[in-house]
């Protein structure tokens, strides 16, 4: 296999090197890529969509269809991971572990066993190690700020780097951070599995639904200027708002999918304990 791999890699490399000789010089302003379509985007974005961040404008409007499917890709990945890993049946009876908070005594409760009704016990993972208080506290403090930043990234995507996707990933990361610093149960308590899964679909649905709404309003799919009549703005601002709406959809979808994938991967689909 190694030899085949080497041969293939070298063959491909040789072909690419051979072809690269014909490329326009690197960072050449006169290359076809820089002179054919991009000037239109750079010069007309402001007029046509009123979004200064050209990448956002192109992403969510000119090539909004790509982005809708990009969101769908991530959604299908979440769905596929769920389908592959999630097991609802418990294959073997598992022992649960509890820790008495005050004394630090850990109890192993067999399947079906009961604990004395007390609030002093907390459930822990089987591979539990004592939590570092610093990490726990810092994360708890950080997470709201991370989330706030994420919302800013989504909302300010028109004017600065960022947008629904980056914001969504950061939002998702904040919950994942919670799951890592505490445990999976805490994170799932914040974001229940069903809610998470539903929001995934809803996020994509916002995107595709906006497109479909444009279609129902009589213009082509994803032509946000159709929203002008609904939003009571001119058609260019409608595009700007349309972009915001779909970015929010992307944000929701991406956030939830990231959490979903993480939960499934880290718990092996059992949702009982994470890392």
């Amino acid at each position, binding site marked *: 296999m190694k030899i085949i791999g080497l041969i293939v890699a070298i063959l491909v490399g040789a072909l690419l090197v051979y072809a690269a000789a014909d490329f*326009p010089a690197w960072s050449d302003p006169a*290359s076809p890529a820089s002179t054919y379509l991009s000037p239109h985007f750079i010069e007309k974005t402001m007029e046509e969509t009123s979004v200064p961040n050209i990448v956002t404008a192109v992403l969510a409007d000119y090539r909004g269809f790509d982005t809708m499917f990009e969101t769908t890709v991530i959604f*299908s990945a979440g769905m596929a*991971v*769920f389908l592959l890993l999630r097991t609802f049946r418990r294959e073997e009876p598992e022992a649960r572990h509890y820790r008495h908070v005050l004394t630090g005594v850990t109890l192993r409760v067999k399947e079906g066993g009961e604990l004395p009704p007390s609030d002093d016990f907390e459930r822990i993972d089987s591979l539990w190690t004592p939590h570092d208080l610093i990490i726990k506290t810092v994360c708890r403090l950080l997470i709201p700020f991370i989330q706030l930043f994420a919302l800013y990234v989504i909302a300010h995507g028109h004017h600065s780097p960022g947008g629904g996707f980056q914001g969504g990933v950061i939002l998702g990361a904040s919950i994942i951070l919670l799951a890592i610093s505490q445990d999976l149960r805490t994170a799932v308590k914040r974001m229940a599995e069903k809610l998470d*899964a539903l929001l995934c679909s809803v996020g994509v649905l916002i995107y595709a639904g906006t497109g*479909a709404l444009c*279609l129902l309003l009589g213009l082509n799919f*994803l032509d946000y200027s159709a929203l002008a009549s609904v939003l009571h703005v001119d058609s260019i601002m409608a595009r700007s708002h349309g972009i915001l709406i779909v970015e929010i959809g992307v944000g929701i979808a991406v956030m939830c999918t990231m959490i979903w994938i993480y939960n499934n991967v880290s718990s092996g689909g059992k949702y009982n304990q994470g890392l």
Partner: protein
Amino acid sequence: MSLQYPALIVVVPLLSALVISIAGWVNKRWCFPITVAALAVAAYSSVGLLFRVLDEGVIVYKLGGWDPPMGIAYYVDHLNGLVLAVVSIVALLNAIASKKSIEQEFPEKIGPFYTLYVLMVTGLLGIVVTGDAFNLYVLLEIAALTGYGLIAMGGGRGPLSALNYLYMGTIGACFYLLGVGYLYIMTGSLNMVDIAGILPDLYQSKAVMAAFIICMVGVWIKMAFFPLHAWLPNAYTHAPSASSSLIAPLVTKVMIYVMIRLILTIFTPEFSFNILAVSKPIVWLSVIAIFMGAILALKERNLKKMLTYIIIAEVGYMVGGAWLGNRVGMTGAILHIANDALMTLCVFLAVGNIVYKVKGAEFEDLQGLFRKMPFTMGAFIIGAISMIGVPPTCGFFSKWYLISGAIQAGHYGFMVALLFSSLVNVVLFFRVFEICFYEPFSDHHGHGHDRHPEPMDEAPVTMLVPLFIVAAILVLVGLYTGDIVNHIIEFAIPKGLV
């Protein structure tokens, strides 16, 4: 509304996939009706679209209202109109047919399964309908990712096969992406028609040639063209019935469509056949593919796996036909996309029925099936006969065009390969029939004894009716080959190709 057909084809399944995923959490029983309704709308729109194309010629649909090449546009011409109709009809029939087997194989995950199923169909339809080279990549990945999930649901070696498929599929898709990047760096455009307009000045460029080669290799990996086929047999064999009867008929065929689109639209026949002058070696490669597919199929003792090797041979048919470089061969390749999709569906649905009842597709499991499942086997025979290439089933006529193309191109090796594969198919299928027919041998053979046959144990009606419909379509498409070729495929191939 008919103006919006191109969008509806993709958007309706997409939206319903999302609704299904929600319904899966609320009430599982809603998933199936929504799936069928969505696919029915897609099928209706695609057939409607095909008829509109027949009337009006190429239909351009601007997504987001942006003019191409700024925005993304759909171009529906005769070529993808035909493929769209086939894909959506196959998906619809398979969805109906596989309801029971899905309920049997994974009752808990009906919702996610149907979601991925419909998303996969969305991806495939999108690949076919789009006119943007990069958009095609994204849709390719949707079809692929959902495909990995659907395949890995099969037990046993399913996950491992799916993982291998994922590695190969990702390499293939990335190669395609890289090829598109090469085109973009040379032309600055991503719109297929636009690229085709710019390219003629660049035909001598090494980068364009490299782009072509890389794209081709990527697509070949995805369609399992020999020797890049290693992922296919295991993946398709170990997939659950419902997935394999969706994926086997469609994925390779859609990738062939992409290849033909690359040849005909983006790079134009002029470049592909005349300037590059690689037709001959590629046809020889497909000859090898056909021989190897046929020979490897011979050694398999599992019905499903045997069929997967036949698919590899069939891919060889279409690649070879497309690369013969003449009109007849191309006609054969395009016709075979439709025909092969339908006949693969037919045999895989029949196998699905068998697996549903017998719980296996090893040759030993097949004994006495003619008695046990006569209707399923009847339809299987029609599918098999079509694969062998016997008139009036459709498989014969595409083979007719392919062989004619080979004769016109003077490429007798390809003709021999096609005939060889037909003969091997006879052996393969009649070996199966023999097992179903003769075995188990009765103890006291001869006359005067009424045997005590196994009682009939047929698959449910919902599985049989779609199977019969497909079998009937095989014959009908065969009889209407003339019309399909004259009214659709004739216009799908550019005038320049003779």
